[in-house]
Structure formats: structure tokens, C-alpha cells
């Protein structure tokens, strides 16, 4: 199948493009990028006028719950949500059941995703067996089956000695260690940011330094082992300062941030105890969110990820203290970035492409996608003017636990090509 | 108060004074003296009327009957429609067991206030008898209740409001009929 995307504003800083172009896709590849291309016979034309065409978006931190928790999400429903949100690639976290800690589990995800055919799944493997933080998982086996990176996401590796072993071991492969930073002796029972929110709502606090101490520790382990370190879902200004300092030293340290930590804060948690705002790490202070927004613009934060965390209704429709942590995010991430950052004039299109496509591919060790002839045709077409309200019906995800239900957003993906196959057509998932 | 217009004055101060004198005599006659008689005014306007009756009974008999105040807020059956923060409380500093209680109120209308007052009274003890004295009986009873002593019978319609003013609670003594827009307004 061949597609000609006509008249879209193409943004790809990798090739210095930020202008209107026609892009011709044939089979799995981009075959031509030019100012004007005539549609040949059998070529389907996609009208790109008024829209933006960018390398396919990548979310390097999602939970698809498959295998083990298919009642929350499956690789198929998660893939639908990803395509709907404009993504061509996602990295799935290993806290499945059984935990993705061996090559067979990696293979299962890749094969299942291929059958679903909607998105490239780049599974992450666990650092330790069953994510227990006690002994090394079969990291090499997983690399050979296609693991994109390694993480015990959901917990920090509590023992510094174990984390050192993990990072030292991973350093022999060209893979990044993604660290969920949390000192559990400080965050035990914590369900909201400590300080104002905890006092106001009468709940145990999850203090910022519960995260920052482990960021500091892992940066030192990065220095010691030479293993590339990526800090997951950074949530505090102080944590970001630690990452900035490490980068200034030239250490291979990167970090990511979620839209909910960028655009929400603890003050948004009202007496209604809306459990969709219960996250790990928790929503922090407004000043933290501000520092993170600055960081995503100035380059100190490398990627936007969603930490897409589907949970069934009964796991959220309950008392805050026993509700599950997390919000879904794949289908609101791009609209939130467009509404609050790009269209608001705080961020350029090329910076958006860096944090949502170029950098995560690089960190996942995925071949770069560039908008030039010969590159794989993983592409996202975006309408920055489409206005909509986030409702439960909007979501393709099996779960509806979004922190942004009710939000009025402007801009979303309308079309997605994944290796030349159209997975989203005019806002509708092609399955 | 919603808009209402004065229709007529039914009793002036002198007429009320005469009515109270008559009622005082009737109470003494009915009870063969004032011994064992207690007066209980229903808050708010029943109280000053009870006090005036007590003064007259004292003049005639030389015995001052005890006076109590009865708050019926918690006994009303219409409280859902007009709850009020309670500012007055029942104040009956004598035992009512075995007493001849004269319940005093300003206006007798549907009978629901008296029903509530009887319930409130019975929760305090077991009187020998309960009699009812009112300044005005305006008819329209919804319960089988009648007054033993009536200052004046005033036939009225539901759209009218019969207002009793009594010193010292009010500036003067008077009974007036007001035309009210509101169907079946309280009192």
C-alpha cells in the first residue's frame, strides 16, 4: 500500500525540516520527501493541509498488564489506545504476572503485539527476578529476545548493593537502566505528597526526598559502573537539579516526565478524594510542576512519557488510601502537550518531536525514524486545532482511570502510519 | 414577612384586657379556685398572655399560680418546612404531675401546635387535667381539639393571617387580620 501525505507541515529536527512538504510512503518505507509530489496510480492521498507531520511518537513508559492483569488492559487494547494517542512505539514495563524477567516473556509480548499489528512494542525487562530486588534477572537472555531496556518499575531496587550489581551487569549490553526511584522506608503508607496535601486530607505523606535520595544514589552508581541511567517519572524540582548536575558532569544520565506531573499538582486533589489523581510518585507542589515544565523546554528532561497505568473501575472507585496508584495517559499525552505547551507558545514543534519521538527511540536503542527517503515509515499526523472534551467514551483503553477526565483539550493525532501500515485514519483506530 | 396588607383590627387593647379578665374568672370558676392550677405558655406569644392571666388570677384569688414556658420546636410535625435554630427553651420549674395545667397560646387554628404542646407536656410528667386557653380561635381545625377558654372567635379564611400582638413582647396589645398572598400561612 502506498500513501501520499500532501501539504502537511513536516517537523523533523534530525534532518533540519520545519516546512510544508509532501511525503510519499510505499510499503514500509518513506520513498520521497519533496515540495510537491504527484500521486501515482493506486496511491492513497492523505490530506495534510493545516496539519503537522512528525516522526512516529514513542512512549517509553507504559503498563499493558499483559500477561496477568488482562482485566485492566491487554496488549491489543493498549495498542489501540497507543494508536489513538498518535504513538507508533511503546515500551512496556515488566511488572506483569508473571514478571517479564526472562526471554520467553519478552518474546510473548513482541509476538502478541505483532498479531495486534497496531504499534511496535519495545518490552522492558526486569532488572531482578520477579522484581523482588534480590537476584539478577536473565538480562542477557532478554536482550537477545529484544528487550529495549531494564527496569524494576513499580519499586525502587531497595538495596544499593543489588542496584550496583544490576547496573554493572547491564553495562556490558548497550541498554539503559530505567530507575523508579523510591526509598520505601520513607514512603511506607504514603499516598499523597507529604506536607500540605497529606495534612489537609489526613493521609500519610510520600516525601520528595523519598525519591531524591534514590536519584542521588543511582547517579553515583552510574558514575561507578558506567551504566547508562534513565530516571523514571521525575516529579520534583530537586530531583531534576540532581539530574542536571549529573548531565553537566557528562554522566550518561537522562530522565523523563509525565503529563500529570507537568500539568497537575497536589492542590488539584480536593476533598472529593478523586482517586484518579493518586499516583506514584504523587502529584507534587505547583512549584515542582513549574520546574518540570521549564526542564522539558530547556532540554534537561529528555522525554515525555505517560506511565499509562490502567486500573479497573473497582480498583479506583473506592477509598483513596486503598485505591491503586496511577492514571492512564496514552490518549491524552499529545493533546495535553499541544494544549499547554506548543499551542501556548511555551515550546517549539521541533522540541516536542525531540521529547516525544527522537529521544525515546535513542534511549530504547531503536533505529531512528527520520522524515527522509529510506527511513521506516513510522509517522504521526497531527491536527493542532481539533477541540474535544475528555470523557470515558473517548478512550480506547480498556480502563478509564484518567486524571484528565473532563479536561477541554485542543489538538490530537488524526493519522498514524506504523511501518507504512495505517493504524489511525482520521482519528479512528484501524483494526 | 411576605407582602401582606392589614384588613381589619379585631380587638384593641381594651378588648383584650376584658377578654383576659373574663378568662381568668372562668379558670377560677372551672377549677374552683386557683389552688393546683399552673399556667404554661406556649412560646412565644403564649407566654406574655399566661403572665397577664396569672396576674389577674392573683388579684382575684390572692394566690399566684406558677407559670412555665413551653418550647415545642422539637415536637412539631411541620419542622421539615421551617426549621429554626432554637433560641428559647422549655422552662417549667415546678412539677406538673397531678397539676391542673392551663396551656396558653395566642391563636388556635389547625390544632397542630396544641397537639405538639400536649406531647411536649406529657413528656414532662402526668398532669391531672390539661385545659386550653387562647386569645383567638380562628377555626379550620385539622385535629379533634377545642379550647376551654377563648378570648374571641374570629372566622377567617386560609389566605388571611390572624396576628396577635401582646405587650411586653410587642409594642401594643391588638388582634389584627392581614391578607396574605401565601395560602395557609403559619400560625
Amino acid at each position: 500500500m502506498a500513501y501520499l501525505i500532501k501539504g502537511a507541515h513536516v517537523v523533523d529536527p534530525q534532518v533540519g525540516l520545519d516546512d510544508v512538504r509532501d511525503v510519499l510512503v510505499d510499503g514500509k518505507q518513506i520513498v520521497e520527501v519533496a515540495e510537491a509530489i504527484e500521486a501515482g496510480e493506486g496511491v492513497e492521498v492523505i490530506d495534510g493541509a493545516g496539519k503537522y507531520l512528525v516522526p512516529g511518537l514513542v512512549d517509553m513508559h507504559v503498563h499493558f498488564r499483559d500477561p496477568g492483569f488482562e482485566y485492566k488492559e491487554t496488549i491489543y487494547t493498549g495498542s489501540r489506545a497507543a494508536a489513538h494517542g498518535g504513538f507508533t512505539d511503546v515500551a512496556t514495563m515488566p511488572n506483569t504476572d508473571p514478571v517479564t524477567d526472562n526471554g520467553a516473556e519478552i518474546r510473548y509480548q513482541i509476538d502478541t503485539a505483532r498479531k495486534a499489528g497496531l504499534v511496535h512494542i519495545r518490552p522492558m525487562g526486569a532488572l531482578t527476578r520477579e522484581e523482588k530486588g534480590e537476584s539478577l534477572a536473565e538480562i542477557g537472555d532478554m536482550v537477545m529476545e529484544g528487550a529495549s531496556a531494564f527496569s524494576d518499575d513499580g519499586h525502587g531496587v531497595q538495596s544499593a548493593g543489588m542496584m550496583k550489581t544490576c547496573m554493572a551487569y547491564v553495562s556490558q549490553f548497550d541498554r539503559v537502566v530505567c530507575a523508579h526511584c523510591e526509598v520505601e522506608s520513607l514512603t511506607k503508607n504514603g499516598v499523597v505528597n507529604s506536607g500540605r496535601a497529606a495534612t489537609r486530607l489526613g493521609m500519610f505523606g510520600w516525601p520528595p526526598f523519598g525519591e531524591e535520595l534514590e536519584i542521588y544514589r543511582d547517579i553515583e552508581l552510574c558514575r561507578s559502573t558506567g551504566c547508562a541511567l534513565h530516571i523514571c517519572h521525575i516529579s520534583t524540582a530537586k530531583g531534576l537539579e540532581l539530574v542536571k548536575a549529573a548531565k553537566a558532569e557528562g554522566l550518561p544520565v537522562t530522565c523523563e516526565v509525565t503529563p500529570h506531573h507537568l500539568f497537575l499538582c497536589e492542590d488539584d486533589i480536593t476533598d472529593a478524594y478523586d482517586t484518579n489523581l493518586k499516583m506514584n510518585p504523587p502529584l507534587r507542589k505547583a512549584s515542582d510542576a513549574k520546574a518540570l515544565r521549564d526542564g522539558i523546554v530547556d532540554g534537561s528532561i529528555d522525554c515525555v512519557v505517560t506511565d499509562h497505568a490502567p486500573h479497573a473501575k473497582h480498583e479506583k472507585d473506592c477509598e483513596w488510601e486503598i485505591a491503586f496508584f496511577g492514571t492512564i495517559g496514552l490518549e491524552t499525552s499529545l493533546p495535553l502537550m499541544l494544549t499547554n505547551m506548543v499551542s501556548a507558545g511555551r515550546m517549539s514543534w521541533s522540541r516536542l518531536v525531540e521529547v516525544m519521538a527522537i529521544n525515546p527511540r535513542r534511549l530504547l536503542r531503536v533505529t531512528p525514524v527520520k522524515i527522509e527517503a529510506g527511513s521506516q515509515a513510522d509517522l504521526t499526523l497531527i491536527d493542532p486545532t481539533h477541540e474535544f472534551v475528555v470523557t470515558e467514551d473517548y478512550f480506547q483503553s480498556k480502563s478509564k482511570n484518567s486524571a484528565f477526565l473532563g479536561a477541554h483539550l485542543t489538538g490530537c493525532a488524526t493519522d498514524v502510519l506504523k511501518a507504512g501500515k495505517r493504524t489511525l485514519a482520521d482519528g479512528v483506530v484501524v483494526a | 414577612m411576605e407582602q401582606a396588607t392589614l384588613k381589619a383590627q379585631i380587638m384593641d387593647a381594651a378588648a383584650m384586657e376584658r377578654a383576659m379578665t373574663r378568662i381568668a374568672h372562668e379558670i377560677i370558676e372551672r377549677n374552683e379556685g386557683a389552688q393546683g392550677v399552673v399556667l404554661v405558655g406556649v412560646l412565644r406569644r403564649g407566654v406574655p398572655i399566661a403572665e397577664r392571666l396569672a396576674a389577674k388570677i392573683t388579684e382575684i384569688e390572692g394566690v399566684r399560680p406558677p407559670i412555665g414556658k413551653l418550647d415545642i420546636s422539637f415536637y412539631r410535625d411541620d419542622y421539615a418546612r421551617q426549621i429554626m435554630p432554637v433560641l428559647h427553651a422549655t422552662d417549667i420549674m415546678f412539677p406538673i404531675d397531678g397539676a391542673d395545667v392551663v396551656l396558653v397560646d395566642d391563636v388556635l387554628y389547625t390544632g397542630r401546635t396544641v397537639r405538639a404542646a400536649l406531647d411536649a407536656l406529657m413528656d414532662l410528667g402526668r398532669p391531672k387535667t390539661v385545659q386550653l386557653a387562647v386569645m383567638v380561635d380562628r377555626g379550620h381545625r385539622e385535629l379533634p381539639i377545642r379550647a376551654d377558654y377563648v378570648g374571641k372567635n374570629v372566622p377567617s379564611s386560609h389566605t388571611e393571617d390572624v396576628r396577635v400582638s401582646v405587650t411586653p413582647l410587642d409594642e401594643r396589645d391588638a388582634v389584627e387580620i392581614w391578607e396574605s398572598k401565601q395560602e395557609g400561612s403559619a400560625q
Partner: protein
Amino acid sequence: MLSVRHLIDTNSLTADDITQILDTAKSFDPIVNRKGIKKVPALRGRTIVNLFLEPSTRTLKSFELAEKRLSADSISMGGATSSVVKGESLADTIQTIDAMQVDMFVVRARLAGTPQKITENTDAIVINGGDGKHQHPTQAMLDLYTIREHFGHLDGLKVAIVGDLAHSRVCGSLAPALKTMGADVTLVAPPTFQVGDPSWYGCEQTNHLDDVIEDMDVVYMLRVQLERMEGAAIPSRREYNRLYGLSLEREARMKPNAIICHPGPMNRGMEIDAEVADCPRSRILNQVNAGVLTRMAEMYLLLGGEE
């Protein structure tokens, strides 16, 4: 009429609301303490469910008595007897009970925010009988009643709340309510018991009871959850008593007219010495009586506003 439909926390109450509750409670006093029938038919025909998801004998009995004094029909369900412990969700439990035509829920819960969640699953009125570490508004009202009975007013009083503030729903409700009524609140606790963000309450904070005890009109001692705390936040019962306990020696330094309160149950010999608990300054038994009166007032004012 109160400005709120449910009684969930004291932060939502205006000074006028609180005054109404205390005044109404006061008018119930002669009824509850009279020789005749100690009840009124004010809530006759109303159905109240006491849903106690966490055991609490005192608060439950106080509510039950208040309900009987108002002639309401009430049933009490405990965590052990309800199916909440059998894995049924809160929403399911509430909807099931709600189908029985309930007018009011009184809720005691281990988890913060439970009463608020219940309001989302029923049309009935909800009173928070204590939720987790969050709030205990009916306790605050009885405390205010007790204090006002002694001083005749609340504004300008200096009140020290002493003890495990970090885990205290009593403090969570009492401090804001006292502030609303114009009292000055000082939070006294060891650092490991202090609230996370005292600026939320806008209160003075100190670790030293001895520095403030002479200035206080009310010394409010909180119960320390012994079983939970020893070794974790304080070293021992003995050390806590020595540093923060209300001893006879400390009691003697209080202002002549100052009073002592405690929400009960007391750990005699820990936060309060036995002789002090029974001394003339102690208002602990007055608080119990005030509990029934103020709970009657809250139920009467909230249910009375309903058609």
C-alpha cells in the same frame, strides 16, 4: 439551617454554622437531663444507619443515644457484621443499604475520605463519625460546646492541643473549628508527632509543653495510640509521660480558670496522670454529655432541612 448538606469536615463550617450547632445543643440540655421522658419526637420516622467500619464503642453509643433521644429509627452496622470485610466494595455496601430508604448515614471509617465517597453513592445525608487520620467533626463540636459552657465564649481563648497530632483526626477537626471561632491554637508534640504542614492550620507549633502551659485557657490532651507508637515515634511510655504528660506539677502551673479536656479513652499515667484526670479542672465527663447534645443538634439541623 446549616450551610452544608453533610457534616464531613469542620473546614466547611462557618462560624454561624458552629454557633447554631452549639446553641441547638444547648436547647437539648434540659430535655436530656430532665426527670420526665428524656426524648423528643423531632426525628420520628427518620431512618439513620450508623455504619462503623472501624470499631468505636464510645462514639457509636453516643450517636445511638442521640438518635434515641430524637426518636429516630436507627440501626448500627459494624465492620465485623457488614460485608465490607468480605471484600464487597464500599460503593456496593452503600447502595445496598441505601435501597432500604435511609435518611442519614453516620460513618466511622479507618480510611480518610470514606464519608465523602459515601455521599457520591447515596442521596442520604452523611455525618462523618471519624475518618482515618482526616477529621472527626462531631468530636470537635462537643469539645467546643464543653469549652464554651465553661468560658461562655470561644473567641480569644488560648488552646493547646497536645500529643500525637500527626495521626490525629481529632486535631484535624478541632484546630480549624477553634480557629473559625476566633480561638488561638498551639500545637504541642514531639517532632515525630507534629503535623506535616502546620501552616495548613495556621497554628503556632512547639515541642515544649512547659513553655506554654501557663498561658493556656484549655489544655487538650490527645490519646497516644500506644500499641502503634512505642519505639517507632517515641521511645517509651515513661519518657513520653515525663516530657509531655499532664502531671499534677504541670496542672498546678495552669491558669486559675483553665480547664483540661481529653477525647478519651485515656491512657492514665501516659498522656495524663490519674489524679489530673479526676481533678476539678477536668472536663472529661462534661465532654461525654456534650457529645450526646451536639450530635442531637447536628442530626436535627441536617435532617430538619430535608423535605
